């Protein structure tokens, strides 16, 4: 572990803004909320925040991106798969969001080899920060994502005048090359461990059981339609819970035609399983017609289905869905706890 002065960390970020070809983005205040956005200078960066509106997933899987372009010359069409390789230097990522990106890596790179995702991901740098503030709705500690020991290039922890820096990758190490750092003392290393340990007590929300029990619990709750209907009654099928989630990655693919009529592109954009027509096929058959079925699907997918295929629970406990759901029925922590209670009643 290294230690860097606060001013030297600022200088490093200024240096990256000035000389790295990639866009440097970081957490900033934006009115009432925090967001990841382009940094003009290190002053704009806030490392002490609770939760950003959207997660940094948007840098590896943007809301819209081109998968394919086509062009007509004479009578020939040329069709070209596209994979925008634009990486970002992302500063200030909380551990649960790092865990979410690791989860997406497993699916988009290791398993299904999605070229647009892979290129952006491999060209990106993630600088994590140990949480200093916890959002009301966050239950990352219960999901084991309040701290992480991988998924970052650098991980910084605020120690007052200095930051402890944990180097996660070779690229992270290289970033520090021209910056003044020193090795951490035993006390400093101890201090980081204490901060991480104390964090666990800072969460108001808690899953009442280990997340590893989720698949079994959900499987047993599948047919409890009264529960799902009751819960979904208020749901507006707006899909916001999907859109703000750092582990949701469903998309639809649409055609965008250029005005000349001869060229255009196929784009993928974020989609959500809560939206009414997500599972509708031509001629109207909808395989998840009831809002309760869609609501149930979201929780089943997060806690059970994805686990079956990839070995991860697909919720990192960030609390964004809870915060943004106007009907207040999107909270996985509450739903899972209530299901557990119903099972044991």
């Amino acid at each position, binding site marked *: 572990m290294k230690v860097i002065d606060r001013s030297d960390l600022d200088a490093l970020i200024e240096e990256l803004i000035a000389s790295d070809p990639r866009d440097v983005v970081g957490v900033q205040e934006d009115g009432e909320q925090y967001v990841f956005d382009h940094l003009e200078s290190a002053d704009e960066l806030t490392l002490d925040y609770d939760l950003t509106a959207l997660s940094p997933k948007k840098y590896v899987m943007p809301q819209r991106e081109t998968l394919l372009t086509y062009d007509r010359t004479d009578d020939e069409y040329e*069709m070209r798969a596209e994979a925008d390789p634009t990486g970002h230097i992302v500063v200030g990522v909380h551990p649960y969001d790092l865990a979410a990106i690791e989860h997406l890596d497993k699916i988009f790179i290791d398993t299904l*080899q999605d070229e647009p995702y892979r290129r952006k991901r*491999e060209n990106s740098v993630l600088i994590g920060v140990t949480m200093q503030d916890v959002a009301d709705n966050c239950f990352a500690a219960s999901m084991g994502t309040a701290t992480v020991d991988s998924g970052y290039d650098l991980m910084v922890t605020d120690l007052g005048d200095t930051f402890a820096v944990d180097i996660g990758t070779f690229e992270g190490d290289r970033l520090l090359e021209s910056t003044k750092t020193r090795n951490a003392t035993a006390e400093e290393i101890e201090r980081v461990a204490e901060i991480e340990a104390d964090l666990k007590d800072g969460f108001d929300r808690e899953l009442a059981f280990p997340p590893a029990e989720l698949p079994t619990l959900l499987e047993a709750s599948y047919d409890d339609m009264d529960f799902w209907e009751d819960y979904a009654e208020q749901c507006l099928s707006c899909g916001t819970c999907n859109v703000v989630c750092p582990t949701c990655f469903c*998309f639809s*693919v649409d055609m965008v035609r250029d005005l000349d009529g001869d060229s255009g592109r196929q784009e993928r954009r974020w*989609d959500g399983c809560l939206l009414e027509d*997500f599972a509708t096929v*031509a001629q109207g058959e909808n*395989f998840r017609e009831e809002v309760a079925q869609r609501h149930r699907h979201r929780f089943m997918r997060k806690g059970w289905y994805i686990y079956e295929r990839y070995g991860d629970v697909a919720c990192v406990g960030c609390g964004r869905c809870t915060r943004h759901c106007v009907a207040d029925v999107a909270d996985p922590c509450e739903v899972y706890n209530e299901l557990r209670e119903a099972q044991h009643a």
Partner: protein
Amino acid sequence: MRSAARTHFEHGESEYQPIEGQIVWIDRHTDDDKLFVIDLPDGVSLDHDPGQFVQLFVPGVGEAPFSIASSPTKEGPFELCIRAVGNVTNAIHDLEAGDVVGIRGPYGQGFDIDAIAGQDLLFIAGGIGLAPLRSVINYALDRPAEFGDLTTLYGCTEPAEQLFPGELDEWADSDVMDYRETVDEVPDSQEWDGDTGVITSLIPPLEFDPETTVALVCGPPVMYRFVIKALREKGLADDRIYLSLERNMHCGRGLCGHCQLNELYVCLDGPVFHYPTVRDKEEAEV
């Protein structure tokens, strides 16, 4: 950064790169259905398993999944039978021989030939469901020695809805396969001297040995439950039934989430499923 060395990723072409397919022949089957014969560059074969599907891309319009209607035993161009029901499918119907489309795939799991080898095959198709089944029907007709008795049941809403009209006549005359057909109803304007009634009405009179028969079923969503019930009544065990299912698909390769059926992905784990795999899945609706 995530080092490429940590993955097994092949730095090759993107999975989203379609190859160019040229439509070389179009045959109208009904008012809404046409057969498209598609040639790949340099005459290469698609090299698919019967029951697999492709994603077909029409520049300027969009992309949609279609089961491959021809058997891999037939070399050269492959065939798709497409019903015009919406945006992409109507645009495909407007294409002409010589036009170029994009092809991705073949994708998904087709019929498990190893599992059905040596068995008597009972094909049950409803409407456009004949398209995926035709790939395996023709496979069996081309390699009769690999299978036992062959039987095909085909049901449509009305006579004018029948696909592959010429081929159906050949099947009806065939010594190799027992072919039976029905229509739900016969409008006054159409002629028909065969059976009428829903497809399930063809099952009770059939004589087959449930110990050596495998049923391969594809049709509209409502059909499966009734057909399976009729097959069970004939003593056919669940593990002797295979189904090809349709769902909304955007990527064809396990990412977009649209085709999910409980924990299964129809594009990866299907579209052909062994019935016991989906029997207890509520979202399979079978």
